[in-house]
């Protein structure tokens, strides 16, 4: 089977999971390398039924005595040895000679007419936020000339740093400094940007999107980065003037205007965003009360004690808390005046900010038939159920998880861009729920599942006066979770220890009291 062409060593056998595959680019051709036991097969990666390069992601196995791989799209089966389709014998995938030598996988490229040089393909991006733009930046680095890029954004501006909305609210920074990608950035790179013009429909069959303003653009690849919506409180008075959500620059504008003739503000939600909003409003001079449905702030990220530290430190700045409290209504004539709680009490407020969580924006994806659950479902390459459509950011659901923090977005953007650039061997395996946060100027870090009780023990360090609290959860001397308050210098070390599950029995004491070992030395 061999001897005519040139052998390429493409990877080591262990890179390919038994029963799975990888794709390799050999002489400009996408080749699916599929492993069954110790044996390797090379087939054309393109699924002729869907037109997508997905054979490498198919499941391999034994079907009626034949070794086959199933296309992940329409589930046809192809014989691994000769490429023939079991369901439709008229269809056959190309195969290549291949094998394993010293643990390395080789493939022999047969001399063939080079594939025709395709023209620049078209990439359409729906969404102009941080996830979308990070992906574009990565893509421009990986393959600057691969695509003609068109971006649709709902907001009438370039991409800005949403994380800085709180300092902006507090008046600590200005809009100028928030801008990550001003309009000229797009034009300088030949990117077509439609601002203030959201896409309203996707025609997958024709690979075309249509915007609210009626702009229609066809695509070879489509990137969905529609972000998330704030969770709406469906209580009486939720639409009263003075009730704000805290999501974008316009929200901040509105809040600042309202704050000008307000003395008291109520923030609904004691998560990161709510606390940031509270902190910002306090800095504007308002009396602020945070209403939170749970009995501790940032309940997802912090344990009781850290939450207590955070609450105390915010109380020290004049922010009041009503914990384990449910909002039942907003009242006021013509504008909000009071927040009613379901215990019968009420809080006076001329300004209300609702920051009770986010939900991925999936309407557009759903409307075009993409499979969605809580978010748009993507695989480890950030590909949706339509191989031509990718999705990143807060709108996606990956391996059951949705993300609302920035660090996972960066990881997703990196992987997605690589696949858009057709250099895709990287996989997004989900982000560890580690989050390095800054709330109201206080460094916080949270990683892993600290709530579990299954034989875990913990190490604790507390210096209340210095505002430092650290706690690590371990199981069998392996780090499971970490919560840091006020001192996050070792956060990276903990994240790594959680990820690699290294035995820390010899450094247990140093974990909290010492410093991370110098990079390169053993943990």
């Amino acid at each position, binding site marked *: 089977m061999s001897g005519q062409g040139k052998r390429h060593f493409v990877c080591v056998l262990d890179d390919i999971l038994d029963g799975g595959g990888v794709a390799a680019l050999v002489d400009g051709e996408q080749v699916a390398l599929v492993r069954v036991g110790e044996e390797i097969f090379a087939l054309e990666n393109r699924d002729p039924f869907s037109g997508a390069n997905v054979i490498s992601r198919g499941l391999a196995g034994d079907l009626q005595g034949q070794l086959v791989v199933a296309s992940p799209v329409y589930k046809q089966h192809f014989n691994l040895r000769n490429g023939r389709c079991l369901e439709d014998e008229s269809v056959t995938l190309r195969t290549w000679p291949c094998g394993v030598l010293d643990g390395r996988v080789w493939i022999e490229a047969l001399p063939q007419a080079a594939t025709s040089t395709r023209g620049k393909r078209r990439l359409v991006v729906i969404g102009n936020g941080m996830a979308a733009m990070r992906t574009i930046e990565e893509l421009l680095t990986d393959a600057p000339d691969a695509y003609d890029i068109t971006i649709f954004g709902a907001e009438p501006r370039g991409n800005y740093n949403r994380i800085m909305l709180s300092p902006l609210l507090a008046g600590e920074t200005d809009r100028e400094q928030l801008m990550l990608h001003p309009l000229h950035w797009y034009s300088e790179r030949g990117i077509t940007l439609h601002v203030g013009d959201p896409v309203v429909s996707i025609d997958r069959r024709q690979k075309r999107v249509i915007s609210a303003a009626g702009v229609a653009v066809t695509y070879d690849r489509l990137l969905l980065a529609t972000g998330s919506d704030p969770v709406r409180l469906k209580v009486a008075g939720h639409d009263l003037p003075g009730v704000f959500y805290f999501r974008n620059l316009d929200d901040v504008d509105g809040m600042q205007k309202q704050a000008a003739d307000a003395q008291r503000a109520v923030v609904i939600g004691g998560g990161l965003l709510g606390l940031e909003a509270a902190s910002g409003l306090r800095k504007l001079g308002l009396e602020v009360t945070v209403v939170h449905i749970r009995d501790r702030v940032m309940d997802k990220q912090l344990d009781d004690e850290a939450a207590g530290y955070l609450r105390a430190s915010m109380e020290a700045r004049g922010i009041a808390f009503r914990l384990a409290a449910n909002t039942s209504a907003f009242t006021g004539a013509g504008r909000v005046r009071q927040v009613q709680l379901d215990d019968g009490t009420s809080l006076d407020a001329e300004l209300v900010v609702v920051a009770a969580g986010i939900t991925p924006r999936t309407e557009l994806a759903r409307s075009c038939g993409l499979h969605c659950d809580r978010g748009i479902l993507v695989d480890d390459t950030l590909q949706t159920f339509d191989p031509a459509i990718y999705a990143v950011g807060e709108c996606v659901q990956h391996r059951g998880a949705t993300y609302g923090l920035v660090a996972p977005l960066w990881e997703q953007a990196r992987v997605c861009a690589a696949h858009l650039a057709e250099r895709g061997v990287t996989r997004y395996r989900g982000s560890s729920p580690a989050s390095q946060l800054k709330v109201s100027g206080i460094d916080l870090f949270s990683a892993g599942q600290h709530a579990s009780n299954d034989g875990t*023990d*913990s*190490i*604790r*360090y*507390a*210096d*209340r*006066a*210095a505002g430092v609290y650290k706690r690590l959860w*371990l199981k069998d001397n392996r780090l499971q979770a970490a919560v840091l308050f006020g*001192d996050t210098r070792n956060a990276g070390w903990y994240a790594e220890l959680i990820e690699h599950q290294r035995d820390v029995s010899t450094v*247990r*004491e*140093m974990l*909290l*009291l*010492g*410093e991370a070992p110098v990079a390169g030395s053993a943990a």
Partner: protein
Amino acid sequence: MKTTTRTTCPYCGVGCGVLAETAADGRIEVRGDPEHPANRGRLCSKGSALAATLGSGNRLLQPEVDGIKVDWETALASVAGRLRACMDKHGPDSVALYVSGQLLTEDYYVANKLMKGYIGTANIDTNSRLCMSSAVSGHVRAFGEDVVPVEYSDLDQADLLVLVGSNLAWCHPVLMQRVQAMRAQRPEMRLVVIDPRRTATSEAADLHLPLRSGSDVMLFNGLLVWLAEQGCIDAAYVAAHTSGMEDALGVARAASTDIAATSQVCGLDAALVERFFAMFAATSRVVTMFSQGVNQSSVGADKVNSIINCHLLTGRIGRAGMGPFSITGQPNAMGGREVGGLSTQLAAHLSLDNAAHREAVQQFWQSPAMAHRPGYKAVELFEAIDDGRVKAVWIIATNPVVSLPDADVVRRALSRCPLVIVSDCVDANDTLEFAHIKLPATGWAEKDGTVTNSDRHISRQRAFLPAPGLARPDWWIICQVAQRLGFTTGFNFDGPAAVFDELARITGLSRRFGMCLDLQGISGLSAQQYDALAVSQWPVPASTTRPDRPFSDGQFSTPDRRARFVPAAARGPRHAPTAEYPLILNTGRIRDQWHTMTRTARAAALNAHEPEPYADANAADLATAGVAPGELLRVVTRWGAALARARASGDIPAGMIFMPIHWSEQFARESRVGAAVNPVVDPHSGEPEFKHTPARIEAVPVEWQGFLLSRQRATPPDALWWAHSPGDSVHRLEFAGRGAMRPDAMWLKGALPGLERADWIEFDDAVTGTYRAALLLDGRLEACLMVGARRSLPGRTWLASLFAQPTLDPADRRCLLLGRRLDGIDPGQTVCACFGVGANTIRLAIAAGCATVDAVGKKLKAGTNCGSCRPEITKLVAATRA
């Protein structure tokens, strides 16, 4: 304006002159007296820290009777009344005094006079019994009088110094420095150290003979035989001035026929023994200096005589640069001997057994009732208290519950004794707990009188501080009691000068009976003259011609004026190791503590050197017992037990355990080594065999260990073991234990009241049993608790240093519960007490190029003040550069 008082150090028998300088603001500094012949300005670490031991904290300030504070009149009436009642009902022998080598000569004199001449019993003994009574016996047997025939200047002229059973570098550091300085000047001067242990002294020696414990007599008998056989006998001297040589040689030959036999019985390499013998034979100017390793033995007196025999045989006595030299451990052991403070003596070196002496003394005193037989020696005395023969005891300036052998029996005896009177300057020690009557005595800085050092120099101790509270001088208290007992005429002294004058005059009796002791040249002094009394070496005859040194004319104090060879049979220690108790417990001093720490523990700098009780043993013996160095162990003997931290310094031979004598229940739980020491005594001297008790090591399994550093002294936890080490700004409490009573936040709150407002920093790891906490008040460190497995505990030195910061540096605060700066080194155990320099700091300096002790001193100042730590720095230099 500074006031300078010339006085004398209250610690060991070197008797260093001290200048106490009081500044206008009351601050006191202490330095060596450059004009004093004993030290010429030098002081050791303990002497240098004297100023830190002053102050009125923890002082007994008012008399107490049955737990009630009273005035002196009431207290004195109670003492006299109860003593009188006891004497009337049970006879004079039912009362006893147990006094101290730390009393001044004047205190000692009146105490002895009261008992032996007025109450009419010789039941007065002293803690000097524990220290040098074997030397006294040896001297009396050989010379007919307790005379030390050598002086410090002889050390400057000796060509060979043999140190037997003496860790001079730690116990008499100023003499060691004098020796070392002389060796530097005269490299031909040799130093031989005979000691089972490797010590700071032996490290400096040209030759170290690590002989088997208790085999000194065999070694010196072997030397005696060898000298005789090598023709080294000074026949003319022996013939003219001695008696009994043949008997002594005969007895010596019985066991020690030659070097091979001697080496074997002493457990020594024959080549070492031969080198020593050859050195001794070849050197005319040889001083054999001996201390507790010789004295504290059931054959102590024989050891002393076996040494003296060698000097008599070679005629090396009574001349410059030679002689047998007993070096005492207490500041006024010698003064006590002069006034007859031992139960076996009369005043002025006279003998209780001698009717003519008794008569002469009674005549002199004009006293009503002379004791006519020796009283109980220290160990016997407490046995007599225990079984009820003695029903009233007055303990003055000593702490027998800690310092005596079989100390738990002493405790039991005192708990049973119907009348225990204790005079002391501190308000709490292990003995005071049993006192029915407590009498507050003045302390060193407040006392006026005289002391005599190891080479017969009498120095004035002068007060430079007023007595605190109602404290009174011991001589005054004793005289007041005597007068209330009805003895008005013999005790109406108006001050220490009057007491001293009587002592000086009574030495006329000594001269009359042909003895050397003579202070008549300094009798008849006015109070002013007494106050100005210059350092004087006895004999001080009335005539103005300066006398020769004792025995320079070959005339001894025996009836025939001949020195006596005393046959010393080769007996080993009383109790040999057994299968059950396979090791030998040896005890001794450490460099920076003194006796039961009542005084030295007041000086923070002195506590840092060895902050907790330890037991040093051979690594193999520890391993056999299943104990690792650093762990808690129990030394168990037939008599009792003591807890200590295990150590394997490498200094201790196989089969031996060494434990320091200093720790009492005030400073550690169940670490009184005295409780484990056998109450065996020398039949002649009555001195206990502190250096040799069969023992075994037991592992003490603990589940947790830890320490607390705190600004205030904390109540110790209810732990298996704890040790408290006081300091100026920080107290250190070490502890170890088992079970649920592990010190935690709750305990800490109770142990250190008054810190409710403090900020807490906590570290908690339940799986490893680690709990750490620090308490800060307004940013200042108040306490730091570390509990866990031993291996997880950080060093103490850096943490302790943080207590000096008015507010904790943020970088230090972050590392606080780690116990060390990540960017710095832990200074390690304090080596130099004067400048607080730690072992690790010194090691670094050595590694950075300081190749000698002097180079280290130049860089770190370590070892440049008192010099007591120079042997340790030498050792570090050798170890680090090896």
